[in-house]
């Protein structure tokens, strides 16, 4: 069974440029893996500038900055949400279209964490995201208990005009784990 929230395109066409990076969480401690988030994000960003040969240096810097920020956030989230003992892989795909980039991050998440995650997604989709951002910041400043602040999604929407969507899929063989795919679309 699968559930979709927000702006999520299933079966993306694969006749355009795309890169897909895969990570197996069991093979390295998360601390060492963390450094890889930045390396991977910067690689994706650098790679994509190749496809904008005639653009100005500022446009290149802008593309790099946007891809690097969003890719890094998606990887950080995927690593944080994935269970430490989980062996299902994490992947990050970046697809280039004429008018936009589409990022898809896929990672396992414990079924026990799914309801709170989906509630937060609904809140994002139904709220004024800037108001929600300020609310969460002010709430965070009172206590530091929210290590997973959820600010990443809000900065993508508010600062990068990104459109977000999620797909949750249940696994037949292991009901304790669901697979979540997060899609981020940014106009060029």
């Amino acid at each position: 069974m699968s559930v979709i929230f927000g702006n999520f395109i299933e079966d993306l066409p694969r006749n355009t440029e795309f890169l897909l990076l895969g990570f197996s969480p069991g093979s390295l401690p998360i601390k060492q893996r963390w450094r890889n988030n930045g390396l991977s994000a910067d690689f994706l960003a650098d790679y994509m500038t190749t496809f904008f040969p005639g653009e100005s240096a500022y446009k290149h810097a802008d593309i790099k900055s946007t891809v690097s920020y969003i890719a890094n956030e998606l990887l950080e989230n995927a690593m944080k949400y994935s269970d430490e003992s989980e062996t299902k892989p994490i992947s990050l795909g970046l697809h280039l279209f004429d008018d936009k980039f589409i990022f898809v991050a896929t990672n396992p998440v414990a079924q026990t964490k799914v309801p709170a995650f989906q509630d937060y997604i609904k809140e994002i989709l139904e709220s004024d995201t800037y108001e929600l951002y300020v609310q969460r910041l002010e709430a965070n400043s009172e206590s530091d208990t929210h290590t997973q602040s959820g600010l990443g999604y809000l900065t993508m929407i508010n600062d990068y005009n990104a459109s977000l969507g999620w797909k949750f899929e249940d696994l037949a063989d292991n009901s304790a784990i669901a697979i979540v795919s997060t899609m981020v679309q940014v106009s060029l």
Partner: protein
Amino acid sequence: MSNLAMSEVKGEDYRVWYDPSASTINCEGSLRLGGSEEYAPIVQLLEGAIASPPITLVLNLTELEFLNSSGINMLSKFVIKARQKDGVKITVRGSETIPWQSKSLKNLQRLMPSLVLEIV
């Protein structure tokens, strides 16, 4: 003069340091630490700088190439703290050649309307 316990925090890809003579905190490199616990030493440095108001503190970010959302969160919380303190003024200096700064730093001004944002 108070003896600052720590006036510099640095890692593989970044350096943050306080220059009391210029009332300036300089941040450079790429900051992508893994959440509020890892940002705590930088928070200490920031909060130490505004411990004895009055002060006009400059946050110089013109060499900060990258900041993740946990880092934006950290800066935002600092600005909220600064707003609550009498006699603390903040100037944030960014660079127009680093695109994330024009996109994200304006939010700091929304949190603290008296904050001066200079993108040069």
